[in-house]
């Protein structure tokens, strides 16, 4: 597809991953720029970003007739399908809390490993989170030197806050945004409760692909073992809910006690560069509220299909 077309208003809508309805948010006084006019047009158009993989390889050559799409259970007519290489923006999140202190040098190497998997058109940044959340490398191309500088260590883990602050990043209409946290999964100091982050992950354009490191093993951590049932157990399921809400996955390194970039991440990057974009105008469903989406490819019943679980169509 001609890249120039992406600048068109409909694709602006679709790549921004938005179900667009009339903007109704109240404007209150704050010294922050107001929304850009581009994708607030009152048009109702929806894009669904779909990965179709068979035996871990993308399934090529699918057209509109190959997909079945249900919006709140109602079958929709797909107006267009496109597949093309799209550059990526990667937000790498490094857990530098007390429980991860021992493997920080390894995490720094992981940044270089991940950057090496990127193409020249991709970009990445590095955000560290412990008690505070700080961007230590601004968005840059993979060819530039990586200067992590001084990493701010402090007790506490504000993982959920870090996820939100990273997911908010606006990659623009012609890029895709992936958030890749390396963490043992514990959260002790976030301001945002987990259900809020799940909601925001659903609304975000970003997909979260989380590299889950084993807590309290193979590194001189300070999480005492008696605390693990409290700190370590439930967080995984909470994290999985956040990650799945964003359309991403949880990955575990081959050697869990040595942080590394899981091999499947390379496939994930390729996958996001070649995803299908399905565009449709919802019919037969109320425009507002939560729209649950289901996508099927009947011709490939064993294929793994990943797509967002839905979108908000504005006030219900």
């Amino acid at each position, binding site marked *: 597809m001609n890249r120039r077309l992406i600048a068109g208003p409909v694709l602006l809508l679709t790549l921004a991953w938005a179900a667009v309805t009339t903007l109704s948010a109240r404007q*209150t006084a704050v010294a922050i*720029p107001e929304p850009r006019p581009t994708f607030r047009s009152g048009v109702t158009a929806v894009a669904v970003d779909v990965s179709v993989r068979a035996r871990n390889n993308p399934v090529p050559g699918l057209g509109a007739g190959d997909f079945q799409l249900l919006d709140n259970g109602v079958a929709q007519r797909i107006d267009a399908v496109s597949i093309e290489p799209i550059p990526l923006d990667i937000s790498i999140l490094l857990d530098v809390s007390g429980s991860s202190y021992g493997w920080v040098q390894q995490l720094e190497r992981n940044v270089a490993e991940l950057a090496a998997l990127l193409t020249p058109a991709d970009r990445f940044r590095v955000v560290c989170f412990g008690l505070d959340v700080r961007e230590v490398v601004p968005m840059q191309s993979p060819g530039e030197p990586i200067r992590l500088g001084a990493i701010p260590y402090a*007790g506490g883990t504000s993982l959920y806050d870090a996820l939100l602050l990273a997911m908010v990043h606006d990659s623009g209409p012609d890029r895709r945004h992936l958030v890749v946290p390396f963490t043992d999964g514990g959260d*002790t*100091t976030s*301001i945002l*409760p987990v259900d809020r982050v799940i909601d925001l992950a659903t609304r975000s354009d970003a997909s979260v692909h989380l590299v889950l490191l084993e807590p309290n093993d193979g590194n001189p951590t*300070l999480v005492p073992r008696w*605390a693990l049932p409290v700190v370590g157990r439930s967080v995984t399921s909470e994290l999985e809910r956040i990650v799945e809400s964003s359309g991403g996955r949880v990955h575990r390194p081959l050697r869990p006690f040595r942080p590394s970039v899981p091999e499947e991440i390379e496939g994930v990057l390729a996958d996001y560069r070649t995803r299908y974009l399905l565009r449709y105008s919802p019919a037969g469903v109320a425009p507002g509220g939560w729209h649950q989406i289901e996508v099927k490819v009947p011709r490939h019943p064993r294929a793994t299909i990943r797509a967002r679980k839905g979108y908000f169509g504005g006030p219900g």
Partner: protein
Amino acid sequence: MMSPARVAVAATLGAVFLLAEPAAQEPRVTGVAEGFAAYARGEFDHITGTIGRVADRIGFARELRRQAPAWIDAAGPDQVPRRRLVVAAVAVEAALAMPPLDAESAMAVELIQWACRLVRRNPARSEAERLWHHTALAVLQRIVVFVRLPRTYVREEVRPHLNHGRDRYPDDPAWRLAAAGWVEAGAWYLNPVSSRAVPADPARQAIRAYEKLLADEEVGAEARLRTGYLEFRRGNSDVALAHVLQVEASSTDRLLLYLAAFVRGQISEDAGRMDDAAEAYEAALERWPGGESAATALTAIRFRQERRPQALALAELSLRTPVREDPWRRYGRGDHRLPDLLDRLRGALQ
């Protein structure tokens, strides 16, 4: 086979290495005594720079204790009290710079205990010593709560220091606030900020202690704020809001005003009043520009309201603005005033 000339060169190099070996075995930590002197002159970056370059922080702490007596006694008797305080302040800086690991944290606690014994040997109490005790307590709170040393450690290591401070300065209401704060910290322990639940007993105990301080001119406003926040976490939002609004109306402390506005935002959010919450977080950011906690909370609201450019601007503010430590993230463990205390301690030593 090696030529005679090469053998001679190799032998010479070997001799050079052998001769050089004793130098390589010198103590890994140097510059401690120079650090004391520089600190006494007000060159605080000297010691923080020295500590920053030392990989073996435990070794630095041991060396600090080993060299301190000679440096203290090298001056005349009239200088000894001040020198003890200088050494104790350097010990606090070294404890603060310890990595969050078991052995290093244990050494940090030990170092503060040692410095506490040192300053209590001074016959006369001083403002600098009072500030040292408060700074040391804040460092202990930072080390003990969030690196999760076992609970027994908490009781054994922090409580005595609270008592030492109170014994030396019985009229200082800040010690009563700190003691109640330590009970409150127990209510937060292993209860993430993002969960609303709070253990009932420590919360009740802390509120009872705070209530006795509400009328105090110096610490009453913080006691009221803390009462308000605990009431909020216990589910008594109306009571909480009344306390918080009173703090906002009466205090001039910028840090407390930020915290009060932030807590008001949390109360409003919990009640589903998102516009009120956003207004509270904006007020907090006016009082403490770049405050990460308020910026994060406001980012979430704006994002949910589909005001994405505003959310993005706030997120970037939070991620990229190098501000002093965010007060809210440290409020629970009670060391939110540590940067200010350290500045004041350094000033009092001059």
